[in-house]
């Protein structure tokens, strides 16, 4: 049901998207405006839908490796991590410790890169051009590292059922240590350039307030719910992989506005660097693939659920196996789908310009919503 103009009020129906720089992909938002104020904002999704869930049913488990990186292009590795963990869980396999450490190092590097991408794009949405140049300079170093490790710059297919596809070499490990030092020295610049900037603060403080209850009833996850004062992070609440080995904090801010979500992501980058550093220090020796994984891995019957913490929130795989080498059902729960679903309630009565800030603060990746 697309919005209709209201004859009793001076309203305007405006399409934002599906081709619009602030929607970060092929997303359309139908707006009902009264002057500069938004009365309703109705997202229309599905323009880039590729039905990864069906591909999960007709491809073998290893044939699905290429798909997992193509949902959330900004932070591909958590999607891969969830997929291999779900299959391993149902098949009763465990990856060797070194592989699990490398998965975590790569995932956290990816998370830092994803937040840098968001940081630049978010400020660009609000008319600040300079920060993206700084962010992409740093992100380039991260992308180079993951390219060296995984072979891909963007849609990484690094994880394998039972391990990872290649071991880390000395240049990668040394480069990652250097990257951690480099990033740490950069936060001051970011905070001076952006966090304290009065124009930026006026655009984000008190704008788009998501209450704790609203976040819970819409199933918002990731930095969105943590910006509403709920410390829901799968890495801590429902630990998986080797995350229990590391000492890190879950940054939360109670205000629920765009600025709170901004601060959560900025603080999360520092925590990811802590995890990477600890993982590098403790990286065990050994193989990076479990032994005797059959080429034609048959899984099930049975069903299992695997949740992981992605760059934008909780990524869930509900896998039903039927004893063959393909899934009987593979449901992929993506965080932005739920995070975007609260947009209409959130945007009642806000200014059109604030809607852009709000959508930017949700950190949307549209192919991940559409799947």
């Amino acid at each position: 049901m697309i919005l209709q103009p209201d004859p009793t009020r001076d309203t305007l129906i405006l399409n934002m998207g599906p081709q619009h720089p602030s929607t970060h992909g092929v997303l359309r938002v139908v707006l009902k405006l009264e002057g500069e104020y938004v009365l309703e904002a109705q997202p229309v999704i599905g323009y880039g839908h590729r039905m990864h869930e069906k591909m999960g049913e007709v491809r073998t488990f290893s044939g699905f490796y290429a798909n997992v990186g193509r949902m959330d292009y900004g932070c591909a590795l958590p999607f891969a991590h969830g997929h291999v963990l779900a299959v391993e869980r149902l098949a009763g396999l465990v990856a060797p410790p070194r592989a699990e450490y490398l998965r975590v190092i790569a995932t956290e590097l990816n998370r830092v890169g994803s937040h840098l991408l968001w940081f630049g794009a978010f400020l660009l949405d609000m008319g600040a051009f300079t920060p993206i140049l700084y962010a992409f300079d740093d992100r380039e170093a991260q992308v180079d590292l993951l390219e060296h490790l995984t072979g891909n710059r963007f849609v990484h297919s690094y994880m394998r059922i039972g391990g990872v596809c290649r071991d880390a070499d000395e240049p990668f490990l040394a480069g990652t240590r250097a990257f951690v030092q480099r990033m740490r020295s950069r936060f001051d610049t970011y905070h001076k350039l952006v966090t304290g900037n009065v124009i930026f603060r006026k655009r984000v403080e008190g704008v788009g307030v998501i209450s704790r209850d609203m976040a819970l009833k819409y199933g918002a996850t990731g930095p969105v719910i943590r910006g509403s004062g709920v410390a829901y992070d799968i890495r801590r609440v429902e630990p998986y992989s080797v995350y229990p080995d590391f000492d890190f904090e879950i940054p939360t801010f109670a205000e629920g506005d765009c600025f709170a979500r901004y601060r959560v992501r900025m603080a999360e980058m520092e925590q990811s660097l802590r995890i990477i550093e600890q993982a590098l220090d403790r990286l065990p020796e050994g193989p990076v693939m479990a032994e005797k994984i059959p080429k034609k891995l048959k899984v099930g019957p049975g069903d299992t659920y695997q949740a992981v913490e992605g760059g934008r929130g909780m990524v869930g795989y509900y896998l039903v196996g039927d004893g063959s080498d393909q899934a009987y059902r593979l449901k992929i729960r993506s965080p932005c789908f739920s995070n975007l679903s609260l947009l209409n309630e959130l945007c009642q009565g806000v200014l059109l310009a604030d809607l852009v800030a709000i959508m930017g603060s949700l950190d949307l990746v549209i192919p991940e919503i559409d799947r």
Partner: protein
Amino acid sequence: MVLDALAAALEALAPQRLLRPDYPTRGVHLDVTVAPAQVRALATVAREHGFLLEDVTAVDAAPQLMVVYHFAHPEEACRLQGRTLVDREQPEVPTIRAIYPGADWHERETHDFYGVVFRDHPDLSPFILPEESAGLMPLRKGEKSLKALGAVVPEFAAPGDGPAPKPRPAKKDPAPAAEGDA
């Protein structure tokens, strides 16, 4: 403990089945099967215990289609899986949109892909599918690929259903092998 309180509250609903599965292999702490008419009561219990709704989806199987709900607690490790079985020809369950507004989109997606009708949902028009593909139900299984529910989810295997499905494999401990290689 949220888990015990939730289990007690679910027990009070008199569900068709309430299990505490093995978390390391199943990934959920509680697995409850209710009649379609009880879905709202299930969602209400989850909401009252502070759970958030992660997703709503379905699994196509014979003779019945299974609608699945996943809830998680934001502070404690407690994941609840709710299931309900509906008729394949006329799949219908009540919407839980009034309890969890976040269910709105998940239910629309499930309607698109499986044709499940969420009763009292105000708008089940095509959501992800294009309008001309309404009623396509792309994730429904064809005749050849449709399997019995008991053959894919052993918890639903009837006792007289031929050979019992293999038990779930236990996780192998990788430590000895890893040491040998190092």
